């Protein structure tokens, strides 16, 4: 009961103290506001990047194993992979055969070519040669028209499905379906437009700036003898089935390439998992450094609060004396000042969160990158600012609580 009353009184004093020195309180709060904005914006930016990475990575498929010449992530042993042979279409076909009825296997090739429709030209568009199975692997489907059929692939049809951004740029007003476009020097008929994929942040590929054509037509049009590197995607069907499937794929590829037991694999197995792992470790390091730097702002803000609390304690020496004379315990005085510093910091934290919300909106509207302020970030910002308040208030409050009543009463 007494603790409760003490708390009520301490809170009342704290509010009174902050209100009595509005300008001083506001300036002190500004330090905390800046610190909290810095920290929450770092978190919001990283949160936004992570979200768009996941979104972009979604088309890779969590249960899909990719067989490629190179690993997706090479740190410093690029040169050991450089001499590996390309994966040829013949090898890819053998894999398709080997896993027929067991798993969906989809070979793809890609290259960059200019696109042209009448006077509209798009340079350097990613052309993906693939099979009718691609939608099963990536979940990408056309919003208009149709995707490839087995027929198109077998008979090397010059048909194309274009990404949403390609459609918007090449056909600003017309319906693209059944129009004939030039891919490089070859003429293709548009049979579909893909759904918008989004998620093209931080230099990742723009999934909406792609054109899909049959892989056989790709080889026919653009496949030089050297330049035919195929990526093969194998869908496991479930995460649990991936491990066994991976070993089977490795075994099958070694058999296709007739590798002797002592030889290393001269191809790589890639998964979303390993990409995410690499992403997360790099990302974690960047986030860590970002937080370290921004938390300096918060620490400086906290020092400002501590400084003001020392001033507040000294100014109110006599008040402390009066309170002690009429029965305030050391704990009551301690709480009074801890409440004051915490109140300043939490108010600053809340204002900082408000400001971060506005900044998040502004950043997203500007479109440079996406920031996302989650409830978790906001709650931890409140928690952190309260913690800063308590830490900053501790030493000054302790000093005030330990004043001897007679000395404090005599203080002028």
């Amino acid at each position, binding site marked *: 009961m007494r603790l409760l009353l003490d708390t009520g009184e301490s809170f009342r004093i704290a509010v009174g103290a902050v209100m009595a020195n509005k300008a001083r309180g506001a300036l002190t709060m500004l330090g905390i506001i800046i610190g909290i904005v810095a920290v929450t914006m770092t978190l919001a930016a990283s949160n936004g990047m992570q979200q768009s990475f996941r979104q972009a990575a979604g088309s890779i498929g969590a249960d899909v194993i990719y067989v490629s010449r190179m690993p997706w992530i090479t740190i410093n042993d690029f040169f050991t992979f450089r001499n590996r042979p390309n994966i040829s279409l013949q090898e890819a076909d053998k894999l398709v055969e080997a896993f027929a009825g067991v798993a969906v296997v989809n070979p793809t090739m890609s290259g960059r070519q200019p696109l042209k429709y009448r006077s509209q030209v798009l340079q350097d568009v990613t052309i993906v040669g693939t099979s009718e199975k691609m939608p099963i692997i990536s979940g990408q489907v056309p919003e208009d028209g149709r995707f490839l059929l087995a027929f198109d692939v077998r008979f090397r049809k010059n048909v194309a499905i274009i990404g949403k951004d390609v459609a918007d740029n090449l056909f600003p007003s017309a319906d693209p379906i059944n129009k004939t476009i030039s891919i490089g020097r070859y003429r293709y008929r548009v049979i579909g437009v893909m759904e918008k994929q989004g998620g093209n942040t931080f230099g990742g590929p723009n999934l909406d700036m792609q054109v899909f054509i049959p892989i056989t037509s790709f080889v026919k049009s653009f496949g030089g003898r050297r330049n035919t590197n195929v990526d093969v995607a194998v869908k496991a069907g479930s995460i649990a089935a991936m491990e066994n499937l991976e070993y089977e794929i490795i075994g099958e590829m070694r058999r296709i390439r007739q590798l002797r037991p002592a030889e290393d694999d001269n191809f790589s197995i890639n998964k979303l998992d390993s990409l995410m792992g690499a992403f997360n470790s790099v990302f974690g390091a960047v986030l860590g450094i970002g937080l370290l730097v921004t938390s300096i702002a918060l620490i400086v803000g906290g020092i400002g609060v501590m400084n003001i609390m020392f001033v507040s304690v000294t100014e109110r020496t006599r*008040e402390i004396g009066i309170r*002690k*004379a*009429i*029965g305030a*315990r*050391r704990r009551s005085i301690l709480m009074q000042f801890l409440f004051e510093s915490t109140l300043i910091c939490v108010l600053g934290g809340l204002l900082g969160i408000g400001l971060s919300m506005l900044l998040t909106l502004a950043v997203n509207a500007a479109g440079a990158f996406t920031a996302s302020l989650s409830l978790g970030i906001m709650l931890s910002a409140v928690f952190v600012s309260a913690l800063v308040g308590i830490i900053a208030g501790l030493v000054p409050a302790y000093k005030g609580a330990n004043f001897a009543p*007679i000395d404090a009463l005599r203080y002028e």
Partner: protein
Amino acid sequence: MDSHVDASTGNEVLLQLRDIVRTYEMGSELVHALCGISLDICRNEYVAVMGPSGSGKSTLMNIIGCLDIPTSGDYSLAGEKVADKNESELADIRNRLIGFVFQTFNLLPRANILHNVELPLIYGGIARAERRHRAEQALERVGLKDRLTHRPNELSGGQCQRVAIARALVRNPSIILADEPTGNLDSKTGDDIMGMLDDLHAGGQTVILVTHEDDVAAHAQRVLCLRDGQVESDVMNVDESVLRNARAG
């Protein structure tokens, strides 16, 4: 020791001081503020402590008020030995047993007078409704019931001192300790305040006041003179009733 009885008067002894010594260190020098004071004060006594500055009367008041603890000697207040107490127990004793009235009033400037008077009850852990009721009652006793929401700077000195008296009274303390209560007031307002202390005493309250003015000390039944940290004289004030009658008439 729970209750003591004074051998000569048969009254209950409220304060008992035995060989109280208080020394301060001022740099390398030892200052002897009190050099062995022994003293009993009974319930419902009205005592004035007098003496020139430096005589130790403030130190004695601080010790009696549990704001300071003696270097050596025993002090018990309402049966509780003060020397054994830690700081929060001392805060508790000040809260329950002592009502302070200071020369400079010592009200909280930012709080209204109701809150000022409620303060000892807050630190005493009294619930809100009762707190308010008792604070209003105490302010009614000093004639300020219609000023509850005023702040100290909106009141005259005499009114401030009355708020301080209400604050001192509100927990029904064993003693009212008044340190130069009229020192900052003009003589007429000072008389009002002394009249109020007289009334409290007449109502059964124990009052101890520190003063250097003879006419203030004249209100007390007993006058204690200190000099150089020792009791110089301790006399019953025979004129008290005469003075009071004179004023009444």
